[in-house]
C-alpha cells in the first residue's frame, strides 16, 4: 500500500493505517531529531510529537504533495522550537562553552576516545551555528539527505541549500580549527 493510500485511510479514521504510516517514517524522523539533540529520550519525544502533530493536521494535507517532505518539515519546525527552548532554559549550558574552553585532546588517547572528543567538539560547534546552517548540515551529513530533498523540506531553493551548506562547513571548520590543530 503506498503512502497516499495510508494517508487517505488515516483521514477516514483507520488506526492501523496510521500505525503503518508511523512505522514507515519514524526512523527517518528520529535521525533528524536525534541529530539535533543527541539524546535518545528527547529525540523520541520529538518523534512522537511530530506524528501527533501530523495526525492533527492531516486534513490540511493535500493529495499529490510530497508527504515525506511535509512530515520532515513538521519535525524540523518542532526541533528548532524545542532547541530554542532548551537553550533559553539553560539546559544546554555546556553548548555555550567556547571550543577553546574544551579540554585539550590527549594525544595518547585511543582511537575511540579521540572519536568521542571530535564528536563532542562538533556538537558544541554545531550549537554555535545559525538555525538553518545547522539544520542543513545535519540533514546532509547525519540524515544523509540530498540537496533537493533538503530544499523541499525547508521550502527553499537548492541553490540556497548549497550556499548555506557551504557557509556551515566554512564556519564549522573555523570553529573546530583549534581542536584540529592538536590532532
Amino acid at each position: 500500500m503506498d503512502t497516499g493510500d495510508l494517508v487517505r485511510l488515516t483521514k477516514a479514521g483507520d488506526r492501523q493505517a496510521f500505525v503503518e504510516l508511523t512505522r514507515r517514517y519514524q526512523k527517518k524522523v528520529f535521525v533528524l531529531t536525534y541529530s539535533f539533540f543527541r539524546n535518545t529520550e528527547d529525540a523520541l519525544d520529538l518523534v512522537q510529537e511530530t506524528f501527533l502533530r501530523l495526525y492533527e493536521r492531516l486534513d490540511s494535507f493535500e493529495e499529490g504533495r510530497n508527504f515525506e517532505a511535509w512530515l520532515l518539515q513538521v519535525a524540523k519546525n518542532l526541533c528548532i522550537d524545542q532547541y530554542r527552548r532548551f537553550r533559553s532554559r539553560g539546559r544546554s549550558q555546556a553548548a555555550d562553552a567556547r571550543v577553546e574552553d574544551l579540554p585539550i585532546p590527549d594525544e595518547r588517547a585511543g582511537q575511540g576516545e579521540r572519536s568521542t572528543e571530535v564528536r563532542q567538539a562538533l556538537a558544541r560547534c554545531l550549537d554555535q551555528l545559525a538555525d538553518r546552517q545547522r539544520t542543513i548540515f545535519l540533514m546532509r551529513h547525519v540524515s544523509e539527505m540530498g540537496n533537493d530533498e533538503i530544499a523541499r523540506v525547508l521550502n527553499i531553493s537548492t541553490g540556497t541549500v548549497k550556499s548555506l551548506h557551504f557557509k556551515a562547513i566554512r564556519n564549522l571548520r573555523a570553529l573546530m580549527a583549534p581542536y584540529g590543530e592538536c590532532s
Partner: protein
Amino acid sequence: MCPQCRRDEEELRTVLKGAEGLQEDIRTAMDKVDWDGLAERIAAAAFAERPRTAVAPSRRGGFWASFARPKWRPVFAGVLAGVLVGAGAMYVLLKPGAFRGPTASLRPSGELVDMVKLSLARREAIDYLDKSQALLLDFVQATPEAAARSLRGGDSSLRAQNLLAKKRYINRELESVEMAKAREICNLVEALFLELAQVSERLTPEEAAGIQRFVEDRNLLLRIRLVRKELEESEV
C-alpha cells in the same frame, strides 16, 4: 599539497569525522528503540486524544463544500479586503456633502482671479523696472561722449525700443489702483526712453549730459529702486 591546503583538508576531515561520529551514535541509539512499540504508542496517543471518524463525502453541497478548502482562503481574504476597501471608498465618495460637484469646488472666485492678475502685474512691472534701471545705469555712469556713442551705436537704442514695446504690453496690467505708484514711475521712464529713441541717431554729448542730469535731478534710479522694493513686498 601546500601547507594551507593541507590545513584546510585537515579541518574539513575533522568536521566530517565528527558528523560520522554522530551517525554512529544514531545507529547505536536506533538499535535500542522498540520501533513497533513506538508506533503503537503514538497511534494510541493520537486516537485517544481525538478519534478520527470517517467522513463520507457528501454529494449534496459538494460544490459549495469545495470552497471551504484551505487553498481558497487567500482568495476569500482578497475578496473580503476588496469589499472592505470598496465600501470605504464608496462611503467617502457618497456621504452627504462629500460630492459637491466639480463646478462648485473648482470654479475660481473673482477675488482669486484678481489676486493672480495683480501678482502677474507686479512681476511684469518688476521685470520692466529691472531692465530700465540697468539701461539707465549704463547711460548715467558713462561719460556724455560714451553715452551718446552707445545710443548712436544701436545697443542702448535697441534696448530702449524693447522696453518701450514691453511697456505697451504691460500698460493694461498697470491700470489697477494697487499699481498706481508703479504706473507713475513706469510712465516717467517710458517718456524718457521715448525721447532717447527719437534723438538717438543725432544725439550729441551735450544732449546726453542733459539727459544724465535729468535722471539724477529726478532721482529716477532711486525711485525705481524704491518702487521695485515695494512691489516685491506687495505693498504697492
